[in-house]
């Protein structure tokens, strides 16, 4: 966006805030003395914070929502007020309170147990309609647990894929593509810490253990100023704090991995902990089988794959004004294969004895470690501070060794050893301060700043070759790059009058890399206008800057994707997005949202044609096409039902997403890989009775765009390296579509409450009617079937079963 526009915006922002404040100054509401009512809203039985819970004064319909830490602050005039605390899926609490001085009230809400349909007629719905932000969706995890799954346990990223505006990647993968953006443009955070690779099992399972998760917020547009650093989305995942009332937990036996979660108080209610762990069984079966196979062939060695992850969190409440949280995540995927074989002796005519020894080892491992130390401090009932120290690291390593030795009469006569290793990764250390300041009823101000040191290791390849007499080692690849990112922001949620509210904000950032400093001002604005009861018109504009890029050859979200920074040669990515939408609360707890958006992206990068992360011995920055442009636009419809016996949603997206690079596709604009014209999801969960829950998911989408051969011919250029070889003529980039994608998943939960625990059997059917959806499509010059395109389909009719004990 033009700098002049940014400057005009900043001046406008200051003007509006000053004007509104001066206007507010003559408003009798704000002249009058205000009483602050503040506190935390928590779950009754576990003490978990209820992010996004509402508090409002029912007569005048004045209210606020809790922040990410469950804290609220509402200012009201002195006098008697009917105050309501409410949260979706919980029983509301109403109290008549006489306010004469600032009051702190911590509220614990009980989960709703009423299953029959109740039409909520109070003003909570109206408040929800007004308070919900354009492009934002809040997903309480408890409402999603009964949904069917591929692996027997719900995967939160796969649930996010079912929301409108969000596309999935390949069949079964956890790839997230938001409003035409690429996966690197999603800021996926676990307890405020960015996670750089969210995949286990080559993308079939996300790293987020749903039993350790409390809430998920997904923001696709209309970004509040407190978020920055990514162009397309913020996925804010908050883990549970741990039950501070009693020790609880659950154990799940799924067919992929068993898991255990345990949480509870430590000594008193002031301290609680949570620990959760998962590990696959696969290697426990693969290793003995492959070992037996190798031994049967006269060798030794085995093949195995496993992943594990651990989540741990502890928090302590010193007093009502100070809370400390420490959370850590560690997860690793590892594939390893080794084979060793010594031949039997063979003899020449002279009677010399010969034998060969071969050893081969291949391994690949990747994983994340994240940690956050967070301090919540309440200065007074208007000012709240969250200080977070963050650490995150992602690594990807491959190693391959090939050793061959020849012996003559037990004397080593020849030896060849080749070792290839490839390492890449990224690590961040950061410090962040977030202030919430609620000076008046009409203003909720948030501001803060953060400093992050990113260390990039963009793919260092080392090739060692040694023969009997000499050793050689070549190391090629990017040097480690250290960068600093500094961000600051301010935003104000202003209720201009009973109908109109706005969120004005500004996010500014600097990025220091290779003696170059990039700076960016990113204005954000959101307007909500209440048309009439239960109807709201909303619009937003946000400008975003992203200083890191992800280089990806494939769409599988494979671990070899490479995180790289903006450098002196490669600019940061930029975008702006404008959106307009309407929300309406229908009868019987239905809520309808329709949004349209237009997003423009610039300074994107992609691998050049022919480039690959692995084979070429050259630096990453020589392999990329730069200064790419992109745009995406569409309309999204979301009809959801959040409460009652039957819950779920219907999401539909009609969208377009394009890219243009001077160096790709002859400079012509082409569809983005996940430009899917139509995308429909129907998600239903129904509580048949107290002991049985049914669920179903049906998805339909246009096929993924791809580039395929359209013809071949022989290279006949004289003196050419590839003379005689077949040249492949491809279609224009991404101009061919895979067949359409659709599938139906069904699930059923059998719940039985025992004296000391609850057990749940979950049966799921993934792709119930066995649709052969394309995993990938390729050309095959087949002798029997004839030449043409073939489709590989996976995951057709996958039943799964899991057994869960909750105590």
């Amino acid at each position, binding site marked *: 966006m033009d700098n002049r526009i940014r400057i005009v915006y900043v001046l406008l922002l200051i003007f509006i805030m000053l004007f509104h404040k001066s206007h507010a100054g003559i408003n009798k509401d704000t002249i009058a003395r205000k009483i602050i009512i503040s506190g935390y809203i928590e779950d009754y039985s576990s003490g978990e914070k209820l992010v996004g819970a509402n508090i409002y004064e029912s007569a005048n319909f004045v209210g606020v929502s809790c922040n990410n830490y469950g804290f609220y602050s509402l200012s009201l005039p002195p006098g008697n007020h009917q105050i309501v605390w409410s949260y979706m899926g919980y029983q509301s609490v109403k109290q008549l309170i006489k306010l004469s001085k600032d009051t702190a009230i911590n509220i614990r809400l009980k989960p709703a147990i009423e299953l029959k349909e109740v039409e909520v007629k109070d003003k909570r719905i109206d408040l929800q309609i007004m308070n919900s932000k354009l492009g934002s969706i809040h997903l309480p995890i408890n409402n999603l647990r009964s949904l069917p799954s591929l692996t027997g346990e719900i995967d939160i990223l796969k649930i996010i894929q079912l929301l409108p505006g969000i596309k999935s990647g390949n069949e079964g993968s956890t790839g997230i593509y938001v409003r035409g953006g690429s996966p690197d443009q999603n800021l996926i955070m676990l307890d405020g810490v960015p996670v750089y690779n969210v995949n286990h099992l080559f993308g079939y399972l996300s790293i987020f253990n749903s039993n350790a998760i409390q809430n998920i917020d997904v923001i696709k547009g209309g970004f509040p100023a407190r978020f920055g650093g990514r162009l397309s989305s913020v996925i804010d995942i908050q883990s549970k704090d741990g039950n501070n009332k009693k020790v609880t937990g659950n154990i799940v036996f799924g067919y992929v991995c068993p898991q255990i979660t345990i949480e509870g108080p430590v000594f008193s209610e002031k301290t609680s902990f949570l620990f959760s762990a998962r590990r696959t069984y696969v290697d426990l079966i693969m290793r003995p089988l492959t070992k037996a196979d190798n031994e049967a062939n006269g060798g030794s060695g085995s093949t195995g794959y496993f992943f594990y992850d651990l989540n741990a969190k502890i928090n302590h409440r010193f007093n009502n004004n100070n809370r400390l949280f420490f959370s850590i995540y560690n997860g690793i995927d590892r594939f390893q294969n080794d084979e060793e074989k010594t031949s039997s002796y063979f003899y020449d005519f002279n009677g010399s004895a010969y034998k060969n020894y071969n050893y081969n080892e291949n391994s690949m491992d990747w994983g994340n470690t994240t940690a956050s130390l967070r301090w919540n401090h309440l200065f007074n009932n208007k000012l709240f501070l969250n200080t977070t120290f963050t650490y995150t690291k992602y690594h990807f390593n491959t190693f391959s060794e090939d050793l061959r030795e020849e012996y003559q009469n037990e004397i080593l006569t020849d030896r060849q050893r080749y070792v290839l290793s490839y390492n890449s990764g990224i690590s961040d250390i950061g410090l962040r301060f977030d202030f919430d300041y609620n000076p008046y009823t009409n203003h909720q101000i948030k501001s803060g700043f953060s400093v992050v040191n990113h260390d990039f290791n963009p793919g260092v390849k080392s090739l060692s070759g040694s023969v009997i007499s000499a050793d050689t080692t070549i190391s090629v690849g990017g040097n480690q790059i250290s960068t600093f990112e500094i961000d600051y922001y301010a935003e104000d949620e202003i209720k201009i009058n009973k109908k109109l509210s706005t969120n004005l904000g500004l996010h500014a950032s600097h990025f220091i890399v290779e003696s170059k400093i990039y700076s960016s001002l990113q204005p954000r604005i959101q307007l909500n206008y209440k048309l009439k009861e239960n109807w709201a018109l909303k619009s937003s504009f946000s400008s975003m800057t992203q200083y890191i890029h992800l280089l990806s050859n494939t769409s599988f979200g494979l671990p070899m994707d490479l995180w790289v920074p903006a450098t002196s040669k490669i600019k940061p990515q930029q975008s702006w997005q404008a959106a307009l939408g309407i929300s309406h609360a229908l009868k019987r707890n239905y809520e309808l949202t329709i949004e349209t958006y237009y997003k423009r992206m610039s300074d994107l990068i992609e691998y050049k044609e022919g480039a690959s992360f692995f*084979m070429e011995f050259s630096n990453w920055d020589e392999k990329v096409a730069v200064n790419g442009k992109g745009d995406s636009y569409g309309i999204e419809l979301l009809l959801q039902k959040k409460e009652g016996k039957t819950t779920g949603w219907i999401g539909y997206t009609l969208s377009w997403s394009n890219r243009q690079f001077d160096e790709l596709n002859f400079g012509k604009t082409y569809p983005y890989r996940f430009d899917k014209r139509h995308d429909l999801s129907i998600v239903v969960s129904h509580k048949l009775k107290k002991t049985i829950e049914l669920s179903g998911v049906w998805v339909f989408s246009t096929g993924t765009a791809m580039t395929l051969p*359209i*013809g071949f011919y022989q290279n006949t250029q004289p003196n050419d390296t590839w003379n005689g070889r077949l040249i492949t*003529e491809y279609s224009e*980039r991404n101009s061919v579509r895979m067949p359409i994608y659709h599938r139906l998943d069904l699930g059923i939960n059998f719940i039985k409450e025992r004296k000391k625990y609850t057990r749940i059997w979950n049966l799921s059917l993934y792709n119930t009617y066995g649709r052969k959806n394309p995993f990938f499509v390729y050309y095959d010059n087949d002798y029997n079937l004839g030449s043409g395109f073939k*489709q*590989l389909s996976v995951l057709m009719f996958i039943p799964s079963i899991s057994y869960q004990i909750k105590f």
Partner: protein
Amino acid sequence: MNKLYFKIVLIGIVFLSISCEEKIELDIPNQTPRMVVQGVLSPGENPVIDLRKSYTIAERIIDEHMNMQQIYFPDLRLYKDNQLVASFVVNPLDPFSYSLNYNNFKVGEKYVLRGSAKNFPDIYAETVIPSKPNVYITNFEYSSISSNDYKFSLKINIQDNPDEENYYAYTLVSNNQYYPFYYTNYEGESNNQQDPSITQINYEFYVNDKLFNGKLKTILLDQFGYMINNWGFKAQETFWIECRSITKDYYDYKISTNKQGNNDFDIFAEPVLIKHNITGGFGVLGSSNIQRYPLTIQTK
């Protein structure tokens, strides 16, 4: 119970691994075979172009069935200013080789190739004859000398014409044999890495116009291997530095086909789209203009 879980896990792995391959029909344009032209026009030379048909994706490709590529009775004509210059004639010994009895190509002239054949879309291509490269050798030195053998390095200056978008190819040739250079770069840059504007294809170096942009550039060439022992030179022999101006279309075609060949075995590599200039068909009609510089080398 353990047995039960063992079975559950085994079943899970089996199901996850189950996959299905099947042939599918996709909505892909341009499914008919095309005429493929690969040829270059150069002043003073009678052009010989290769003409053959392309395989469609539905055809099974068998190496030994070369006649599958033959196009029968095509009509290939070259035009200048809408005037017919001549028709290409097939070589009776090589059904893919078509020659033109004409070599009076002049710098700046635009030539148009039109072709047609039964069951093929008509083809059209045009090319403009580039000017000769303005090249001169500024320095020659022996970089390594053994008892009876030697290597050498050269500095070649190319003065780019700012009015033309010129691309260049240069090589070392003697007795119709090409000799490889070890390294090439242009002066003023680090010697550690070859500039991405220079691409080596077989024994030739192809240089992007971006490298020059109308300026004078000096290119360094180093010889790979000893001339006598490695390359069979005589102790005293004349050879040529051969430098060609080539059209952008030809340069793009060479670079893209070479890049595709280099990445043939890398499953992670992005597809390389071939930059051809044959409308209605595939391949390239390029043009070039050659300058040769003789050098006589003696062992010391």
